[in-house]
């Protein structure tokens, strides 16, 4: 009982390096040895952070990025889990689908942007499709692996109980694959968030944090750029923590519900 508590205590040594770096930063900006555009002085950085926090454009950008992320992630995950289930449960579907899936997966995600923008225009549609694509592959791969690794003994129980294929899927394979699917959806969310920022930054149209970031760079505002990056990291971390907690609360219940009814 004592050890986990002791281990959880924050190791103060971890904040030494950040403090030293911060001190160097203050000294460097006070003595003026560095280009203030690159190494923003602390006071200016603080002002920039506060100004951006009060900037309505930033919140609009963050909101539309989040909306885009959720749309793309949901679409990509639903498609990915569905395809993962089909390919993971049927040997025939695997032989038909897996080679093409693996071939398409080799293309770097953002290399799809030129084609997507040519087909769907420089706007929201192309961005959401790219985000969905970013979410699709992790969701599909993890679902497929989860289905394939559903214990043979459990499937045999299903056969002994004379379950139909649908019941085997619903009561045995999906509950067994649930942890893997859940982690696939988590990876999909992280990947979709990277896809959101990258797509907005590269396409650079409309609203979004990526666009906001890009224009801050154009204006040579390192303080705003840094604020955006911290915000990106924070949003990504918050989203994946929220999803992890949701799954931790939901997964056993879902598995039980599938077995109980």
């Amino acid at each position: 009982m004592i050890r986990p508590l002791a281990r959880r205590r924050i190791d103060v040594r971890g904040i030494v390096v950040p403090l030293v770096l911060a001190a160097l930063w203050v000294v460097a900006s006070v003595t003026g040895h560095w280009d203030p555009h690159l190494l923003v002085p602390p006071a200016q950085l603080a002002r920039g952070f506060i100004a951006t926090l009060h900037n309505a454009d930033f919140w609009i950008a963050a909101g539309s990025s989040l909306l885009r992320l959720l749309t793309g992630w949901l679409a990509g995950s639903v498609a990915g889990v569905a395809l993962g289930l089909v390919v993971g449960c049927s040997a025939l579907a695997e032989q038909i689908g897996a080679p093409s899936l693996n071939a398409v997966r080799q293309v770097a995600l953002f290399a799809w942007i030129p084609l997507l923008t040519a087909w769907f225009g420089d706007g929201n549609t192309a961005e959401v499709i790219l985000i969905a694509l970013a979410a699709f592959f992790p969701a599909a791969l993890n679902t497929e692996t989860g289905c394939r690794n559903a214990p043979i003994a459990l499937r045999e129980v299903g056969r002994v109980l004379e379950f139909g294929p649908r019941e085997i899927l619903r009561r045995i394979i999906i509950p067994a694959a649930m942890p893997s699917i859940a982690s696939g959806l988590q990876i999909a969310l992280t990947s979709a968030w990277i896809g959101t920022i990258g797509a907005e930054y590269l396409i650079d149209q409309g609203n979004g944090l990526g666009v906001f970031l890009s224009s801050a760079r154009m204006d040579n505002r390192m303080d705003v750029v840094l604020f955006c990056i911290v915000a990106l990291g924070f949003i990504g971390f918050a989203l994946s923590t929220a999803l992890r907690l949701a799954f931790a609360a939901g997964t056993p219940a879902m598995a039980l519900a599938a077995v109980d009814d």
Partner: protein
Amino acid sequence: MIRAIPFVDIANPPELGRHARQRSQAAPTRWLAVALGAIVPLSVLAVWSLAVALHAMRPQILPSPLAVWAAGVDMLRSGDLASALEVSLGRVALGLALGSAFGLVAGAALGRSRTLDAYFGPILRAICQIPTIAWLPVFMLIFGIGEELKIAIIAKAAFLPILLNTFAGVRTASARYHEVANVLEFSPLQRLRFVTIPSALPMIVSGLRLALSNAWHVLIVVEMLASASGIGHVMAWSRTLFQLDVVFVTVVAIGVTGWLMDFAMRAAERRFSPWSASA
């Protein structure tokens, strides 16, 4: 009740049989697999040709498969594709070398010394939370949009996977090996040569594989954004000129190059996996 239990062949359950069959594929089965795998690409090609034949989309937006093929042959013959890939791969090699050198040293140091880990670990892990692509604007402000930018961002993309994997590989080297090294009174150099490196190598190679894949992905983005050469630039520029046949060729080239690099790294992973390294 007994009647309700269907016959289950314990010795040869169907799933195992399926996988066993897949492993020892006879020639006809292999041809079947190729034929089945070709269904999706061929259907896509058919729909694509049909859409072109019916003028469903403007030819600037959807070039015919033959036009793409011709553009590919042309780019291969003229050497345009090879020279663009050469530039891109040169950047990957340089950035990867730089990033892995730092990653290896830092990972090994943090893995060996718990004190260093306590000081530097938390800030490095915090930096991990932010994806490489988000650092791009900062790097652009610091390095401009020249060659340094590409090398620096690739090095950054490669650094963290190598650092984390080297760290894990060094940290998990079995304590027993270190006890043997103590008994044999190894010098630090001998310990590095005979204990640390062999036991950490598989993890390091896996880290390198991840680093290479990250580096390739981020390079494409940088070249699309800020470059006058390389495969990503050719792709973005052809898109601006609405030469979508060239865009298709570059997408395939990016996919094939990524796949070849990953294939080579997977082979290296198998080569350095624990059971072969100990031999």
